[in-house]
């Protein structure tokens, strides 16, 4: 029993299958984009939140932390840090400010970034906004 297996057909399947599933991906992407506003509460993205995201990026926070589970796994999850810190932006600011310049002997420590008060408030607001995104109940508990 010798099956016929041609290169032409294999090629058609590659191009056809790829196109098919890319179109499906575009359709799902389109749907996602249309329902995202209900989930991310973008109406709450203030200038302060925007600045907060910039501070977050400019200091490469993702290099140690995870944010909604993505990033490095060296330091705690921050998607829910606002709730973990008792729904307090002041607690977040206080923590960032209090990091010792030379670290803590023998332990991991967050660097001292010398942020201005405006930047501190912004990054805290950014994390507050992030904690309010509908993430399908992730993380499983307050510890992140």
């Amino acid at each position, binding site marked *: *029993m*010798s*099956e*016929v*297996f*041609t290169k032409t*057909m*294999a090629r058609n*399947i590659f191009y*056809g*299958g790829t196109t*098919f599933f890319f*179109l*499906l991906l575009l*359709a799902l992407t389109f*749907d996602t984009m*249309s*329902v995202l506003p209900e989930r991310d509460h973008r109406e709450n993205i203030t200038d302060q939140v925007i600045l907060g995201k910039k501070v977050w990026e400019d200091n490469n926070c993702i290099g140690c932390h995870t944010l909604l589970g993505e990033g490095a796994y060296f330091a705690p999850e921050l998607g829910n840090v606002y709730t973990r810190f008792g729904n307090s932006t002041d607690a977040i600011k206080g923590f960032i400010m209090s990091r010792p310049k030379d670290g803590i002997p023998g332990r991991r420590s967050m660097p001292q970034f010398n942020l201005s008060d405006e930047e501190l408030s912004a990054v805290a607001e950014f994390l507050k906004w992030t904690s309010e995104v509908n993430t399908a109940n992730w993380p499983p508990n307050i510890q992140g």
Partner: protein
Amino acid sequence: MSESVAQSAIAKEPLPGDLAIWFVIMAEMLVFGVFFIVYVFVRSNNVELFNEYQLELHRIGGVINTIALITSSYFVAMGVYAIRKGDVQRTGNMLLLALLMGAIFVGVKIWEYSHVFGAGIHLSTNTFYTFYISLTFFHFMHVILGMVILAVIYSFLRKGKYTAEAHMDIETGASYWHMVDLLWVVLFPLVYIIR
């Protein structure tokens, strides 16, 4: 001795169509199979919800579509039969009829979707609709792809590419199209009827 002759007479039939399409058919059946099983599993945790919203579906449309796809499959099978006899004209007619049936399916489905989406229902409305839309839309895309394949085959046929001896593409396309039909045969009762 006679047994082995009989064996070879029966068992020698090769797979209809190119082996490559059979990898695709297997992969597709696997994906749909898993999707169906997941549907059943999720339904068993949300029986009330599924029973309630299932009744809102348009069953008549589903029935028309089942008949359309089965009939379409019939025409394709007749087309393969005809090309084996070398009857190119008849094969072409059968493919056109099959495409017509496919078009009926697509038309009814678009009508059905226009009602569903028109009512403001979308993928995230509830778990039932997530599955109803996911399964039927994914299948719908397969119908369209199958029609594209049949249309390409038809145009090649018209160009005189196929004969009684050489018509591998027709068998390949037919096998794919029957798979699309087969999936709908399971999908229709599962999503529209069984409760």
